[in-house]
């Protein structure tokens, strides 16, 4: 019997599901290798089925989400978060830094109809996560590599070194050194292909924190470039604003 896969969505832009839906021929190949039992956007709907691998996109932002993720965990052998929302709360976690309810009140004339929590939290804040795939968005290579590895019964290998390492391998000109741009590459996890520096612009950390990072050194460097403390804080508080290493770095300049 083929292994069963589910793709679940919480609060998100649907962009990480496109790692599957934009995969073209690979999507058809995947459907030969595994049985995709639940993937609402693609068609199959069986939210309560027991599966071998569950991919989870999106962050927890409603009271219903809190219950639903528990159920998904209990019926999934291996749970993988895909993307910044599921793995770190997403860009919408910026509300956690302010009064989230006040934001809801500002956007909606009748906030009493909106069933939303004041916070946006990652999946791991609620249940055990077996594998985190970072990135805003994750790409097809990341999700297919994870499936392939699991089909072979091995734990998927995730690179956690920095974008800088990838830039060096690619032979990109360093935008921080050569152009004085506030590049987040030194503290950001690799996996995207160092796309921003390759395009001559500063990385904005959409793949989240790398391992063993030295944020104080980067904060100093940004200050040296002339960035104001709030500008430095905003560099850390973008797509992965709720990742602890980034929150700490932001607080160090703007308590």
């Amino acid at each position, binding site marked *: 019997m083929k292994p069963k896969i589910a793709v679940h969505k919480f609060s998100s832009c649907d*962009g990480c599901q496109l790692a599957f839906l934009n995969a073209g021929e690979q999507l058809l190949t995947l459907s030969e290798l595994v049985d995709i039992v639940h993937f609402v956007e*693609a068609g199959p709907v069986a939210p309560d089925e027991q599966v071998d691998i569950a991919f989870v996109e999106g962050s927890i932002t409603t009271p219903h989400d809190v219950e639903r993720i528990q159920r998904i965990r209990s019926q999934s052998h291996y749970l993988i978060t895909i993307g910044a929302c599921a793995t770190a709360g997403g*860009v919408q976690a910026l509300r956690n830094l302010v009064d989230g309810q006040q*934001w809801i009140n500002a956007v909606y004339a009748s906030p009493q109809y909106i069933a939303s929590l004041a916070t946006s939290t990652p999946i791991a804040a609620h249940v055990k996560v077996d594998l985190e795939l970072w990135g805003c968005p994750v790409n097809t290579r990341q999700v297919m590599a994870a499936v392939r590895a699991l089909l072979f019964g091995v734990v998927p290998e995730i690179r956690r070194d920095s974008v800088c390492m990838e830039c060096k391998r690619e032979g990109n000109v360093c935008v921080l050194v050569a152009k004085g741009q506030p590049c987040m590459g030194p503290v950001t996890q690799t996996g995207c292909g160092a796309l921003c520096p*390759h395009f001559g612009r500063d990385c904005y950390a959409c793949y989240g924190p790398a391992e063993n990072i030295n944020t104080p050194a980067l904060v100093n460097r940004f200050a040296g470039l002339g960035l104001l403390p709030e500008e430095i804080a905003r560099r850390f508080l973008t797509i992965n604003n709720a990742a602890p290493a980034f929150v700490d770095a932001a607080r160090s300049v703007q308590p």
Partner: protein
Amino acid sequence: MSEERRIEIHVPALARVEGEGALNLVIEDGRIAELKLRIYEPPRLFEKLLEGRGYHEVADLVARICGICPVAYQMSAVQALEAILGLDPGPWVRAMRRVFYCGEWIESHSLHIHLLAAPDFFGCDNVTELAKRYPNEVRRGLRLQALGNDLIRLFGARSVHPVGARVGGFYHAPSMNEVVTLREKLRAALPEALALLQWTASLSLPASEQPFTSVALRHADEYPLNEGRIVSSRGLDIASEEYEQHFVEQQVPHSTALHSLLDGAPYLVGPLARINLNFERLPKEVQAALRATGITWPSANMYHSIVARAAEIYYALGEAVRLLENYSLPAAPYVEATARAGVGVGASEAPRGLLWHRYELDPAGQVVSARIVPPTSQNQARIEADLHAALMSWGFAHSDEVLRARSEQIIRNYDPCISCATHFLDLRVQRR
């Protein structure tokens, strides 16, 4: 029919739409007592999280509203911000933004036609089932979708949340070699796009005409993407700055997306509305292909939206080839901006329709306030009106299952993006 039982159906999810929503349907004595497209995709409050951000940060942030149409959000945003900053990025940027946007139309429309909409017409549940029966058609669709993604990647490095767009232009100009290689692939795909258009027109599309108001951008001499006045099929013709005087967004209790009305009434945005209002702005070969389908344009049949989508793929491929025909590397791919205060609006045609943004910046160039009106919230009231009229005329002498499938198909005609406004719909039918 006098002794109506009350029947309640709960279908856990309407699949193959983007976002989370549901449909409540109450049928009483053979009439619709209640019909509500419930959208419960949790709000992400983008308009608030943009406040305090620098103008140069906005394009990367608003892309995250939608993974399927990030380019649209970037384009409406940079346009509004450039209006405030008094920037004119010049002809190269203008042309290449059109190409970039064509990529998103091709990707999004191909995805919708093949992965979301087409299975309905063949009684399949999803694209993998469809691919077993129609491998050539599905693979053609996936190839076109991939070409759209390649085109976004040419200017954006990746197709979801591309990193190339900025206020003033692009961070990077693609090399001549990359452009020529992709351009020739696009050119070679033109016959495939034409065949796709013919295929969509050959589907058994129900005849279901309804009076509705189409709204789209209209430009003096080109098919609208990034520029134009906002026009309607009832004579509206306004600058995008005047949008708020005619269009009103209101909250309804059953939806986290706001409903938008034009002079108090529902209206349609998206591919069918665009073609209805801009048919003669299409190149001759696209017009000819559309006429050859036998459909009369403008069309009042929402099922023709799939043909409109295919026509726009065919158009966008040709338009990208045309604009890349004499590609040259610019001196710089962007113009530099200087911060200043002001208010600006931007309107562009997202794959799903008109996307309107308004920003206010402070003297340091930081966002004071933002307002974003996505296409799906504009179509929401129209979807409800369509369902109401279509189900009434179709009658209720069908099983709940058939009724549900029909309702889903009607909703999919609008390609609702519930993440922009709304991701899965669960349909509840009650008969009393």
